[in-house]
């Protein structure tokens, strides 16, 4: 028997002597053998631990001299204090793992007793083996189950956003977390498929640095990332690991570098990154599809706006500055991303409601009569039916419908008041009024300066406009990019 086998046997016997099945064995034996004490000697008859079992354990040395053969045989003898002792081998297959020593027996054990001990020992061994198998299963399955749960959680975290920038950053952060690395980068292939463009680079010490000049685009085949993207194969090095992002074709590369505990990356971590990359590819593809859909939606809206503009320029649409202002106010108010997207749609087609309003009313200078105002209210709703069939515009419809409402409830079409007016509509109302006041238009009333328009809006805070929106507007309108509203004068 070589040294490692010997050590393995010893380890098995130590674990066995400490196992739960041994305490049951001890109890059973104490009933059979009466008031006995039980100790464990290894295969060399050395006691496993010297404790309360006292001088009887010196018996080991005594027994060692006789080395019973064959090993299955038990030994009954008297110790130096004239007490009866029983040494019983612990056997598995053909190997003796050690011996159980019973001391202080009140009488010499007969064959029935020995058989009972043997049965108890077999039971204890079987029980211990079961215990060992369960432990092994627990040790093997639990980490995998935890890893699987981690992957499931990552899937949930990744599938909860369709915004590409947010998604890529999230993938990088989760990679950093799961790989326990100090650095992670995600690079996607450009349209020419010749270069990898860094989309998110996170370094624990430096935070996001994707704009840092050191993170330049990488040519395919160059550096670790370029090689992985070219060959489609994973790269596992001591301090870095790199996995291509593959969805039919290679779309990019994800890489992690330098573990926080300075240990090397191993195969298990490579497997984790491969699984994470698979999840990332699905999420990236979904986000790309969503982006394409969004582009199509914007394209459709812009086409509609262009058609309406062709019928009557500057009647149904507003300037690009107007759209930018609406979005800037929404950002300033920290509205949710989805609300901002809907507001963007609405800002591109704010006045579709004017479509069937007669030109003479639309272009009439000065104030309207009550019957003309009635026509506007009725036709505003009629006109909105043109776009109500566009599914992607549905969330933006309430904004378009209600952006002529006034905060105090005196607007149209429904006379909604305060927070009953959709927040997007309240934002658009302020931007709309500002643009109307500062831009030159024959039918929008008298043009006034930017500072006068701001004052006017502030004066109508709480009556016509939502004070919260006005506050955000004031923060936004002073920014340099809004100083040049088309037709505006300082």
């Amino acid at each position, binding site marked *: 028997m070589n040294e490692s086998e010997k050590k393995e046997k010893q380890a098995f016997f130590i674990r066995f002597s400490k196992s739960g099945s041994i305490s049951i064995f001890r109890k059973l034996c104490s009933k059979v053998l009466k008031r006995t004490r039980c100790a464990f000697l290894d295969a060399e008859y050395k006691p496993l631990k010297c404790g309360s079992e006292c001088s009887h354990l010196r018996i080991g040395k005594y027994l060692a001299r006789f080395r019973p053969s064959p090993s299955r045989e038990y030994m009954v003898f008297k110790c130096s204090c004239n007490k009866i002792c029983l040494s019983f081998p612990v056997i598995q297959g053909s190997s003796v793992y050690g011996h159980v020593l019973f001391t202080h027996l009140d009488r010499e054990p007969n064959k029935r007793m020995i058989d009972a001990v043997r049965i108890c020992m077999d039971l204890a061994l079987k029980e211990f083996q079961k215990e060992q198998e369960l432990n092994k299963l627990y040790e093997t399955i639990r980490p995998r189950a935890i890893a699987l*749960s981690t992957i499931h959680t990552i899937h949930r975290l990744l599938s909860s956003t369709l915004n590409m920038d947010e998604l890529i950053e999230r993938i990088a952060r*989760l990679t950093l977390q799961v790989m326990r690395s100090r650095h992670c980068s995600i690079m996607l292939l450009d349209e020419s498929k010749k270069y990898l463009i860094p989309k998110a680079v996170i370094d624990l010490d430096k935070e996001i640095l994707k704009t840092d000049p050191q993170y330049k685009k990488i040519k395919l085949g160059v550096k670790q990332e370029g090689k992985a993207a070219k060959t489609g194969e994973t790269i596992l090095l001591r301090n870095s690991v790199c996995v291509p992002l593959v969805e039919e074709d290679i779309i990019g590369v994800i890489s992690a570098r330098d573990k*926080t505990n300075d240990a090397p990356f191993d195969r298990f971590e490579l497997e984790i990154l491969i699984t994470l990359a698979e999840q990332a590819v699905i999420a990236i593809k979904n986000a790309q599809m969503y982006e394409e859909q969004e582009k199509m939606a914007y394209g459709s809206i812009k086409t509609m706006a262009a058609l309406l503009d062709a019928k009557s320029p500057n009647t149904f649409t507003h300037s690009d500055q107007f759209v930018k202002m609406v979005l800037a106010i929404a950002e300033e108010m920290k509205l949710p991303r989805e609300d901002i997207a809907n507001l963007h749609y609405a800002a591109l087609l704010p006045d579709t409601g004017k479509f069937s309003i007669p030109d003479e009313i639309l272009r009439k200078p000065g104030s309207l009569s009550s019957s003309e105002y009635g026509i506007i209210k009725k036709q505003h709703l009629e006109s909105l039916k043109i776009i109500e069939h566009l599914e992607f515009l549905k969330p933006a419809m309430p904004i378009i419908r209600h952006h002529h409402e006034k905060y105090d409830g005196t607007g149209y079409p429904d006379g909604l008041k305060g927070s009953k007016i959709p927040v997007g509509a309240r934002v658009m109302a302020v931007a709309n009024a500002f643009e109307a006041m500062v831009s030159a238009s024959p039918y929008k009333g008298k043009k006034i300066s930017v500072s006068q328009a701001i004052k006017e809006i502030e004066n109508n805070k709480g009556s016509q406009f939502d004070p919260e929106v006005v506050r955000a507007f004031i923060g936004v309108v002073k920014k340099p990019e809004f100083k040049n509203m088309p037709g505006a004068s300082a």
Partner: protein
Amino acid sequence: MKNIKSLFKNEVSKKVLLFFNENQNCIDTVKGISLWIGGDIDIIQKVLNQLVKEGVITSHRTASTTAYAYTNNKEIVKKIEKYIKKFKGL
């Protein structure tokens, strides 16, 4: 961060820290963590919030899910590992 010893005084907090220290790659929700360490979800949630405040656990939030993971701070991890070794008598 508080004194590490005080983090280990609370039995649930101790279980959470032992779990994450043993499974440093893990990212899971409070429900998942309660499955691995056993115990009441609400209590574990409170402990996790506290540990996030202490900087020992990091949270990854989305509109619908919050997941928790072990800190990436090398120094904190080292301190916790040292403390665990000490009380386990290793």
